[in-house]
């Protein structure tokens, strides 16, 4: 079975993706997994735009309302001992009800803790990461991911290295 990227996308947005000139990144970096899954340490990343309301501010959705071609490039740390009722969700391109009910649909921390207990994975890191997927449009009409590439994604990667992470599961939303 082939997954149809546009199955759930409104026609206008789908045609935007179709027409987008994507320059394939070359070479694509590749790090073979060094240890088996049951000896590896994992971290999770999502672009669901969620945050921990007890320790963090929301993403800057107010500025996006004023400047529709801009998106907040910062990220939030979601700890492995997160509490569902303290999670904030406000992504302006999604209905956030399901994320408010269960973040495991995009950031499956609880499921990975279960797999850690069952010894299916080596361990789950203390910290996980939430970005907000809408990054606006650059002058070339493409997604404006420069701040992610130059600052925030390297920051997250360094935090993972500091926490001894071997592998990351990343979900766009």
């Amino acid at each position: 079975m082939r997954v149809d990227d546009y199955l759930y996308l409104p026609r206008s947005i789908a045609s935007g993706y179709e027409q987008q000139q994507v320059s394939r990144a070359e070479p694509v970096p590749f790090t073979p997994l060094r240890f088996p899954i049951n000896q590896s340490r994992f971290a999770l990343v999502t672009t669901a735009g969620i945050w921990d309301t007890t320790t963090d501010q929301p993403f800057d959705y107010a500025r996006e309302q004023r400047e529709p071609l801009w998106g907040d490039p910062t990220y939030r740390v979601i700890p492995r001992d997160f509490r569902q009722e303290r999670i904030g969700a406000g992504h302006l391109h999604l209905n956030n009800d399901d994320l408010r009910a269960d973040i495991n649909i995009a950031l499956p921390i609880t499921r990975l803790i279960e797999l850690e207990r069952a010894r299916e994975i080596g361990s789950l890191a203390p910290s996980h990461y939430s970005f907000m997927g809408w990054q606006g449009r650059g002058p070339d009409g493409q997604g404006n991911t420069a701040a992610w590439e130059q600052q925030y994604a390297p920051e997250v990667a360094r935090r993972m290295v500091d926490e001894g992470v071997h592998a990351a599961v990343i979900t766009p939303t």
Partner: protein
Amino acid sequence: MPVLARVIESFGISTIVVTMMPNYAERCGVPRAAGVAYPFGHPFGRPGDVPMQLAVIRDALRLLAAATHPNTVTHLPYQWPEPQEIAYKAWQPREMSPVVRFMRERTLAARAERERATPEPGTPP
């Protein structure tokens, strides 16, 4: 997001992207991706559905370990349990996103401008 995966991978961390748009990920270039035909916002399935979430996670972990070269993109066979027309509406925001509203207003303004510039033949002044 392919770009996040590429940066993190370049720090010596193996990544897999679980995405509703695997063909787009492949066009951008991604270390590994698992495609799943679920509505946006739900890469692992429905809230509270533990078996559904675990199925995608276990597949992603297996693919993570098995891949031997970049741009390994695998399409998972799962189907969303609700009808497409319901799921299509359910994931979308109740209010139009700012950029969709912006584009819509721009299109409407351009159309109005064209109509002002070229009145239909026979239209009374």
